[in-house]
Structures are given as structure tokens and as C-alpha cells.
């Protein structure tokens, strides 16, 4: 009893330390900068959580956000996965109930690091079910610090993935547990966890396809059992009903093709169980006829269901050719480098773990094998799906390491006592050194892994991207706070209902930090609206003015990196704007117009005249031509593109500079109101009277 007590204390301590290590290694950004929400999407999540915590849950579900997608607005309650906001809101509510007066922002900032600890615990549980306690502890330690997961869960990165990975791992743990025990208790737990996952992230589709796949493969392997039948039947029905409770998911689980595999496997499982039941009661002849009848019927049904849905899942990836999806960097295919960068040594060792699992196969190891294979496939398709690969890689590598250690460390320990007791036992002196070497090697690998993880976390994944920092020669730090400077100016010094036009990347940040109405934002559901903004940016000023008038734009915000050499600015993104605009308005915007005859995209004198006179160019370089950054370069030298700009004499007719941040990173222009019209002659006035009063909004096609 004391040994088991000691073991559980040890496991508890290791898990606690893993939690602590995972939590603290995610705090680089908070320590270097401050407790702030990062990037783009988290700003929306934060804003909705803030809304939830100030106005209550029902108000949040019914929230119509009139500050987004002007003039369309957005029904937020019905278009988000509310799990993240509800989790943060609930934690905030409970803490405040206990008079722990934490600001909702801090709850949001530290949510992902806290949940990474829960992920470590659930990974431990899952791996323990698959292999043993030791492997579980190793897996927990791996997942706590592996960069592939940290990239999505640093403090301040308040995004769905932060809690979804926990939900994913915990659902899988409960699923494995329910397959092992065949108890409805565990299956219901699995369903609840699945419900949480559905509420948190669109990646729940991965679960609802992987579990049926597991069941299907088990059937193929002749591993059908009553436990499996109970587990899957309960999971499918309860999970289906629960998942449909999320407004955003609604009836998708019974309509879309992604969910059809689950339904098909459910039907198959029922049929299989029924046949098993009949087999004991019918003669061979009767059984055969029934079987053929059944198979043909099933084939017909399957045929009908397959032809009906228009888009099989694979076609979704064809959407990658739509510019707006392709323009997002995290939708690019994964390179080998990023596999190693995010997983380091684990990417090499996890096949070994997979091999160990397949060698000693059982029901749940079939599951982890399928998990690994599918996750590897998805991670290869898209960079951001690396996230689903990471947990399984950690588990399998942990199994591999654990087996190696067990072999090279464990045996000696076990036999130490018998050796002393009797002399007949042969001592294998020869292998001690090889054991030592192997163990040292493995420990070295693990140490290098830890070092790599910390390095990657510190260097690649701990920048808030809202605040930039540059370092001087003496190591002192300059903070470039231009984004917040400009957003705060908008918040304080523009009309409360002012409408700000910007490229969609900045929509969430403007809504979150400036609290102003935006035309388009990171929830890119309406391509034509985005294309209209893209068209305004890529047209000349007067054409753009017409579009801006029709959209009631008051301010235009752009990001310009030419002064400090910031490469993620709007001129560098400009071709995507042109492409997206061209997709909707091929007559007005042509991508080829923005290239030189040689097919280059240049901002200097050799650049195409269309580019040099489009609104984006003019706004970016307005008065930049007079600015001499240093003595080696001519005035108007763009540091990002290393070129002297081609159009230095920029005059704006319909816009005026409203604000430019200290390092020119953010430039905001005011759209001038139309000037008073000239007094008209009496005669003219009579003629015009009929037309003049038609609203501009009614005829938007005039401007296209």
C-alpha cells in the first residue's frame, strides 16, 4: 500500500510540475510585454467575452453586433462557437462570486496556459489507458512544453484552440475508457466532453469522423464486442443530440457530408449487431438469403446518401484556390521544417511508438494508430492543423521513450532484490554499459528537446503582434506601440458611430481596441463585401470615393511599414486585395494592371501607373515623398521594399490625413463630406429635381 501511495504521490507531483512548466513557459509574452490579448481573432473573442460578462449569457446569445460588417451587421450568438467565451465568462463569474476581483481581460489572457495544464492531465489519462502510467507521465510532460501546441496557447492567445485541445484529448480519453469498459457512465461522460468540444471549436468534426472510423476498423478486424456496441450507440445518439444544441452547429450533424460517416457507421453497427443476434437463431440457408437482402438494401441506401450531398469533404480543400482562403498564411501546406520546428525529436520517435502500439495491438491501440495516421495527413494539408497532430505525437513518442527506458532501466531495478537473495542467478555484467549509454543518449535527446521547446517558445511564439519591439545596439528595447496609439486615437477622438474602412485583417482589432464600426473583419463570411473594400483600395481616388460614399465610410485605416521596415503592411498584402476584388469585379480590376510589363510588382518609378495612382498607394505614401529617413537614401525611400517611391507628389482630393502614428505604421484618413453644391440656376434646378432625391444606396451598381 505504501508503494502505491508513493507512486501516486510521485505521479501527482510530476503532473503538477508539468502543469507548472507548461503554464510558466507560456508567460514569455506577459513578462516581456504585458497582460494583453494577442493577434487578431483573440480580440474578437475577448470582445465577445467582455460582452458576455457585462450583459449576461442570454444577451450574448442574442447579440446582434451592429459594429461589424457595416451595413450588414453580424448575429454573433449564432455565428460563433461559444465554448471559449462561456468558459472564460464562467471562470470570471465564479471568481467574482468568491470576491476574487480579477479583470475579465486577465481571465482571458491566462485561460490558454491554465488549460494547457488540463490538456497535460488528460493526455496523461489517455496515454495511461493506452500504455502505462510511465508513458502517461512522459506524454503529459511532452504536451506541456511542445511548441506545436504552445504556438496556439501562449498567454494572451485567447483562441478556440486553447481550450479545444483539452476537450479533444479528454473526449478521446473517455471514448477509450468507454470502449474498454463498455459502461454507459463513461460514454455519457464522453458525450458531455464532446459537447464541450463542439461548443469550442469547429475541429470537433475530427472527433466525429475519427471515432466512427475506429469503430469501423474494429469491425473489419473482427473485434466487434458488446462493449463497442454500447459505447458507440450511446455516443452517437447522445452526442448528436447534444451537438445540435449549439446554435452555430444547428442541423449540420444530420445534413452535411462531414457527419455522414458517423451516421453510416452507426447504421452498420446496428446491422452487424442484428446479424450477430440472428446468427444464433437462424439456419445457415435462411441467414444467407437475409444477408444478401440486407447487403443490397444497405448498398442502395448508402448509394443514395452518397449522391445526395453536393460536396464530399475532400472537395472542401479545393476551396484553397479561392483567394480569400489562400491569402491566410496558416492555410498553407506544411513544410518539413515546420514539422521539426514544432515537434523536434518527437517527430522522429513517434513512428516507433506507433510501431510498439501496432505490435501489441488491442482495441484502444487501434484507435491511437488511426488517430496518428489521420492527424499526420491533415497536418500535411494545412499548417494550422499541426495542432491536432501534436497531442498524438506526444503520446506515441512517450510510449516509445517509455518502452526504451523500461527496457534499459526498469529490468535492473526489478531484479536487484532476487540477486541478493540467491547466488544462482546469473548477473549480466556485460550489458550494464550499453544500458548506461542508451539511457544517457535518451536523456540527452530529452534535454535537447526541452531546450529547443523553450527556445522556440521564447523566439517564435511569444510576440503579441499588437506591440512591436526593436532592440538597440546596446540591448535596450524600444517599444513600437503604433497600433494601439492609432486605435486609441480612433476610440477617443472620433464619433462613436464612425465607420472605419480597412482591410479585413484589422477588423477585429479595430472593433476590440478602437470600438468603432468596421466594414469587414476577420470573420470572412461575405466575400463580395470584402471584394468591395478591396476594390475601393485598388481603384483610383475618385472611383474609390464613390464606393466609400455608398458604404458611408468616415475613416480609412491602413498599415504602412515603409518608415520602420515592417513587412506585414498593406502594400505587401495589396495583391491579395486586387485578386479578391478581381474575383468579384473582373471588369473594373485586373491584376495584370498592377504589374509592370515585365510582370513585376514595383512601387518605384518603374511601377505600373495604375498602382501608382490607386488609393492604397496614395494613402500609404502621402507626404512620404518629402521624408528623408537617413542621409544615405533619397527622400521617399521605402525601407520595407527597398525602393524610392515612384509617385512623390501625391495630392488627395476626397480624403485628408486624420491621424498618423508616431512611426507611420498606422495611417488614418478622413473621408471628406461632399462640399456644398453650387447654387443652381432656376431652370436647371427644375430639370434636376426629379432625380436628385434618389438615395445613393439604392443604386450601388452605378458605381461599379
Amino acid at each position, binding site marked *: 500500500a505504501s508503494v502505491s501511495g508513493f507512486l501516486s504521490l510521485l505521479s501527482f507531483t510530476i503532473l503538477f510540475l508539468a502543469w507548472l512548466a507548461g503554464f510558466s513557459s507560456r508567460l514569455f509574452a506577459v513578462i516581456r*510585454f*504585458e*497582460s*494583453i490579448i494577442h493577434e487578431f481573432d483573440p480580440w474578437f473573442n475577448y470582445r465577445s467575452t467582455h460582452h458576455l460578462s457585462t450583459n449576461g449569457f442570454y444577451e450574448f446569445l442574442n447579440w446582434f453586433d451592429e459594429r461589424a460588417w457595416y451595413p450588414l451587421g453580424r448575429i454573433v450568438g449564432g455565428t460563433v462557437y461559444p465554448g471559449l467565451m462561456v468558459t472564460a465568462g464562467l471562470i470570471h463569474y465564479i471568481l467574482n462570486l468568491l*470576491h*476574487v*476581483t480579477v479583470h475579465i481581460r486577465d481571465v482571458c489572457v491566462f485561460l490558454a496556459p491554465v488549460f494547457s495544464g488540463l490538456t497535460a492531465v488528460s493526455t496523461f489519462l489517455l496515454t495511461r489507458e493506452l500504455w502505462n502510467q510511465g508513458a502517461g507521465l512522459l506524454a503529459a510532460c511532452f504536451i506541456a512544453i511542445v511548441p506545436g501546441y504552445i504556438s496556439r496557447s501562449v498567454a494572451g492567445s485567447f483562441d478556440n484552440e486553447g481550450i479545444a485541445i483539452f476537450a479533444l484529448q479528454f473526449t478521446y480519453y473517455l471514448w477509450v475508457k468507454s470502449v474498454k469498459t463498455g459502461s454507459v457512465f463513461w460514454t455519457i461522460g464522453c458525450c458531455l466532453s464532446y459537447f464541450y468540444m463542439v461548443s469550442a471549436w469547429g475541429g470537433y468534426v475530427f472527433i466525429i469522423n475519427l471515432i466512427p472510423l475506429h469503430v469501423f476498423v474494429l469491425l473489419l478486424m473482427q473485434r466487434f464486442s458488446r462493449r463497442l456496441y454500447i459505447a458507440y450507440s450511446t455516443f452517437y445518439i447522445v452526442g448528436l443530440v447534444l451537438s445540435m444544441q449549439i446554435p452555430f452547429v444547428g442541423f449540420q450533424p444530420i445534413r452535411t457530408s462531414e457527419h455522414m460517416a458517423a451516421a453510416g457507421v452507426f447504421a452498420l453497427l446496428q446491422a452487424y449487431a442484428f446479424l450477430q443476434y440472428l446468427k444464433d437463431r437462424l439456419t445457415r440457408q435462411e441467414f444467407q438469403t437475409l444477408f444478401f437482402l440486407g447487403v443490397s438494401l444497405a448498398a442502395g441506401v448508402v448509394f443514395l446518401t452518397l449522391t445526395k450531398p453536393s460536396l464530399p469533404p475532400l472537395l472542401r480543400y479545393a476551396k484553397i484556390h479561392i483567394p480569400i482562403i489562400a491569402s491566410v498564411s496558416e492555410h498553407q501546406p506544411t513544410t518539413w521544417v515546420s514539422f521539426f520546428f514544432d515537434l523536434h525529436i518527437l517527430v522522429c520517435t513517434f513512428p516507433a511508438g506507433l510501431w510498439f502500439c501496432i505490435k501489441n495491438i488491442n482495441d484502444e491501440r487501434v484507435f491511437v494508430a488511426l488517430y496518428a495516421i489521420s492527424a499526420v495527413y491533415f497536418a500535411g494539408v494545412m499548417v494550422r492543423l499541426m495542432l491536432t497532430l501534436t497531442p498524438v505525437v506526444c503520446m506515441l513518442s512517450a510510449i516509445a521513450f517509455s518502452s526504451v527506458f523500461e527496457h534499459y532501466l526498469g529490468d535492473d531495478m*526489478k531484479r536487484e532484490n*532476487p540477486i541478493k*537473495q*540467491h*547466488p*544462482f*542467478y*546469473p548477473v549480466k555484467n556485460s550489458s550494464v554499459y550499453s544500458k548506461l549509454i542508451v539511457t544517457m543518449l535518451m536523456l540527452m535527446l530529452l534535454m535537447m528537446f526541452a531546450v529547443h521547446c523553450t527556445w522556440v517558445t521564447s523566439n517564435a511564439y511569444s510576440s503579441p503582434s*499588437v*506591440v512591436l519591439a526593436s532592440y538597440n545596439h546596446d540591448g535596450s528595447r524600444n*517599444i513600437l*506601440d503604433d497600433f*494601439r*496609439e*492609432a*486605435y*486609441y*486615437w480612433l*476610440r*477617443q*477622438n472620433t464619433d462613436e458611430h464612425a465607420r472605419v474602412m480597412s482591410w479585413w485583417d484589422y477588423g477585429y482589432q479595430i472593433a*476590440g*481596441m478602437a470600438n468603432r464600426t468596421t466594414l469587414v473583419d476577420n470573420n470572412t463570411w461575405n466575400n463580395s463585401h470584402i471584394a468591395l473594400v478591396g476594390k475601393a483600395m485598388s481603384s483610383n481616388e475618385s472611383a474609390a470615393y464613390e464606393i466609400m460614399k455608398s458604404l458611408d465610410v468616415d475613416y480609412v485605416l491602413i498599415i504602412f511599414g515603409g518608415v520602420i521596415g515592417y513587412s506585414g503592411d498593406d502594400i505587401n498584402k495589396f495583391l491579395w486585395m486586387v485578386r479578391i476584388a478581381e474575383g468579384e469585379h473582373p471588369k473594373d480590376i485586373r491584376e495584370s494592371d498592377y504589374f509592370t510589363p515585365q510582370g513585376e510588382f514595383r512601387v518605384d518609378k518603374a511601377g505600373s501607373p495604375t498602382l501608382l495612382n490607386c488609393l492604397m498607394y496614395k494613402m500609404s505614401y502621402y*507626404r*512620404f515623398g*518629402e*521624408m528623408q529617413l537617413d542621409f544615405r537614401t533619397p527622400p521617399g525611400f521605402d525601407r520595407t521594399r527597398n525602393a524610392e517611391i515612384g509617385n512623390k507628389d501625391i495630392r488627395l482630393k476626397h480624403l*485628408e*490625413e*486624420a*491621424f*498618423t*502614428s*508616431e512611426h*507611420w505604421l498606422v495611417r488614418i484618413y*478622413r473621408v471628406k463630406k461632399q462640399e456644398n453644391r453650387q447654387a443652381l440656376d432656376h431652370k436647371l434646378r427644375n430639370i434636376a429635381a426629379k432625380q436628385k432625391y434618389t438615395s445613393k444606396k439604392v443604386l450601388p451598381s452605378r458605381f461599379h
Partner: protein
Amino acid sequence: MQRSLIACFFRASLCAEGLVNEDVKRTLDLSSHLAKITAEIQLANHGASRVNGFTLALEAELAPHLAFIGVKGEEEEDESLELKETTVHGQSGKFFEAQLPSSLAPGAKLRVKVETVFSHVLKPFPTHITQAERQLVVFQGNHYLYSPYPTRSQTTRVRLASKTVESYTKLGNPTKSDETVEYGPFKDVPPFSQDAMKIHYENNTPFLSISSITRTVEVSHWGNIAVEETIDLRHTGAYLKGPFSRYDYQRQSDSGISSVKSFKTILPASAQDVYYRDEIGNISTSHLQVLDDSVEVEIRPRFPLFGGWKTHYIVGYNLPSYEYLYNLGDQYALKLRLVDHVYDDQVIDQLTVKLILPEGARNIHMDTPYPITRSQDELHYTYLDTFGRPVLVATKNNLVEQHIQDVVVHYTFNKILMLQEPLLVVGAFYILFFTVIIYVRLDFSITKDPAAEVRMKVASITEQVLTLVNKRLGLYRHMDEVVNRYKQTRDTGALNSGRKTLEAEHRTLSNDISALQARLKSEGSDLAEKVGEIQKLDNQLKDLVCRSCQEAERLVAGKVKKDTYIDSDKTLSGKRQELVSRIDSLLDAL
């Protein structure tokens, strides 16, 4: 009410009787965005009776903007006189009655210094300027001292912010040099005389005003006072017209000359952990300088403030409580500034002070240096609070630098209450650990799991089997030693006795093991077979031991040669090792 008004009127007229302003020196300081008007007055009692006080008057146009008024005696160290607001029948404006410390005898003279500060009286004109233009403001006032008494002689000196003056009223041919305009002397001015003075001049000093400030002071008896100020700041100068060009602002030093880039806030010397932030995070453009007698924060808003622009921020810091909190037994007194410095020549349009006292503070009494509106007390809950901390809320409008004065709050607090919070934490942990202990130690399952019980039983039996088998193997080793000793000593008796004990102990051990094997079998464990196998192997092993024993006997007896004995011993021990390893592997499998 009626009676008191009449009384007031009578007193006012009584005071007025016989008093004359012999000599008045007025200074209008218009060099900032405030109008600071100081008047040094020599009062003479020309009446027949002693006078206890006198009346001060303010013009009706300026009166609503009055932020501060104070009257002092001639000497610097003189206490300021107590002021009471009154009315004067038939005259417009605002009136204050000043009480003299000692009454003024007929014919006696007295010098007083009246200090007044008016906010928002300098009006930008033009009201909208571009970034390149300079800010011009207009001041409209009175050439004379507005007084209920006749004035014998007076001069007025106006200090401006710059040399550039567009226009000024020319009453009495004033002299202008650099930044000052001097009017007067004016002789024999009757009471309540007014003559409009108008000065239009350039003033680029920061026209900042705090439209609202909320100062929250949270007192903890654990040694800390946390102060937090939430400030809404506004540039009240001429509005910016047209574009804001960052290029011009960066390249030309006089571009946006009236804009405010930064200012200094002076915090108490012991201020620590200063933070400066707003709704969207830390404001990185600030510097902190710790001086001997204060802490200076260079507050730089995120963006320069032009006319009409505003910003909002929070400044907070901690103070050690021993400098501000005094106690005598359970009686406590908190003494700190009601409002603190934000920037030089500050104007606060609206102030809200919230004093959060420790949980359990009673008999609260607040002494303010000047009248202030108290609102309903509130309750505040923060870490580890149960019934809430009392919060004193007070508000006041239109404050200037002269209002930076101390407030004293008296309250009683039972020191035992300080233990409440640590005990709460201890209790919470106690409950947590106790729950864990109970959960781990007690069995809460509603059904017994027979399989688990069997498993546990089997485990305990196999453990016993293991120890017994090991003991048995130990017997053989012991026997070997006996045999070896026998080979040297040739003591047959010892050998036989050794053999006997071996037999006896071996029998009991084997019996025990078979009993355990039977129990395993009855539990339905398949380990019973393995134990049976071990028993079988052990029998062979024992035979071998016996044989080696016999061989040794034969060797000693000389029945075999040494060579053959060694050979046979070798084979025997080889067989034995094989058996032992097989038993070991079986044991491992248990």
C-alpha cells in the same frame, strides 16, 4: 430662512459701512490657461464703530468660473481667513464675507491679500485653428476691483503668456512691455464699478483640463495603501481644423505648438509600483523618475493632444501605510491628499473620491479641508472579503492646484478582524485536504466489485508465494554451505542434522505453498497452475540438492574419485541453475 436672509443683509450692509479700499494692487496672471487674480488691498475703517469682517465681491460674469478663493493677511505666515458666502441686496455677482481674527478699530488700517483662480475664462479665438497656426485667446474682465467699498487708488497689472498681443482695451492709456500690460493708477473709484477689459493675445500653454477624475484609495491594514486615478483629459484650447500631418509635426518644431505631447505628474515620494494604462493595456510611452522628495511620472498620452482631442487613462501606485495611517489602540486616522497633482496649473471639472476602508471599520468620520459633497456610502468587495469594505464617496466640481490638501478620516477598527482573512485561507485549505483524505480513504462505490476483490486477494497470495519460494531457495543455499563445510570437516553429524532441518523446513514451506496454491485455485486464478509448476520444478531441484549431498557423502567416504565428483557436481549445479532460472521466470510471471 427669511429671517436669516435679512440678518445676512443687515450684517453685510453693516460691514460695508465705513470701510474704504485705500490702496489696491491687482495682478491678473493670464500666462497659463487659468486666470489667477490676486488683489492686495489696504482696507481702512473710516466708520465710527469697530468692524469684525468685510465683504469680497466677484463680477457676475466671472463668478460661475470661480475655482478657488482665499484671503490672507499681509504676512506670509498668516492664517487664511474664514470665508462665508453671502448676498448683497440689489447687486449681481457672488459675495463672500471674511471674518477678521481681531476686529478693526475705527481709523485703523489692514492689508489683506485676496487670491482667486478662475477656470475656463480664457476663450480661444478663433475657435478653430489649423496645425500650423498659433493659438489666440481672449480674456474678458474688469479694469477695476469689483468691491462693495469705494476705492481710493488702484493699479492693475496683467501678465500674459507671450509678447504677441492682438488687441487690448486702452482705458487710462496702459503701458505694455514684453509680456505685461499695466493699467492705472485709477483714483476714487465708486463701489461696484465695472469697466469691461478685453485682451486678445497668443497663448500656447497647454490648455488641458481634466473633465473627470475618479480617485480611489484602498487602505489595507497589512501595510499598503493603493491609490488609483482614472482620468479623462481634454484639450480645451482652439479646435484643430483640417488634417493632422505627422510629417509636419515631426519635422517642424513650431507645428502644432499649442498641442500637448506630455506632462509631468508628481506622486508622493514613497509611491511604488506605479502603473499607467488604459482600457487596451499599458501605455508604453512614459518615464518614471524617482527624486528625493517625490516621484515624477512623465505622462505621455498615446498620441499628442490637439485642440478638442481627448484621452482617458489610469495611473495607480502603492503607498506604505505607516506614512499615512495613524492609530491609538483601535482608533485609526488616515491622513492623505484628497486630490493630488496631475499636471501644473491643473483644472479638474469633476472629482470623485472613493476611500475604501478595511472591512470592519466603524464610526467613520471624514474631515475635509473644504466643503465637498458626500454621496451614499457603498460597499466594496475584493479578495477574501465576506461582508464588504465601507467606501466613502465624495464629489466636487471645479478644482485647481490650491485644492491639493489633506483629508483626515477617523474610524475604529478591531485588530482581531485582521486575522479573519488568513484564517479564511487556512480554513479553505483545511477543507480541501480533508475532502481529499476522506475521498481517498473511504470507499464510496455503491456496488462491490468482486473482480477487483479477487484480484487483490490473488495479489496478496502471490506475494506470500513469492516470499515462501524465495525462502525455500534460500534453504538450498544454506544446505550447500553445510555440504561444503562437511567436505572440509567431514563431520557426518553436522551434515545429517543439516539435512534433517532442511527436510523439515522444506516440508513446512512446501505445505504452505501448496495451501496457498489451493487458495489460488479456489479464487479461480490461473496462477495456481504456475505455482503448481513451480512446485514440480522445486521437487526436481530438491532431488538435485539431495543428490549433490549424497555425492559429497560418497566423496568423503572415498567411494568416488575427486575428478568424477567434480564432473558430476558440475552437471548437477548446471541442472540446478537451469531449474532456478526457470523458477525465476515463473516467479516473474506471477
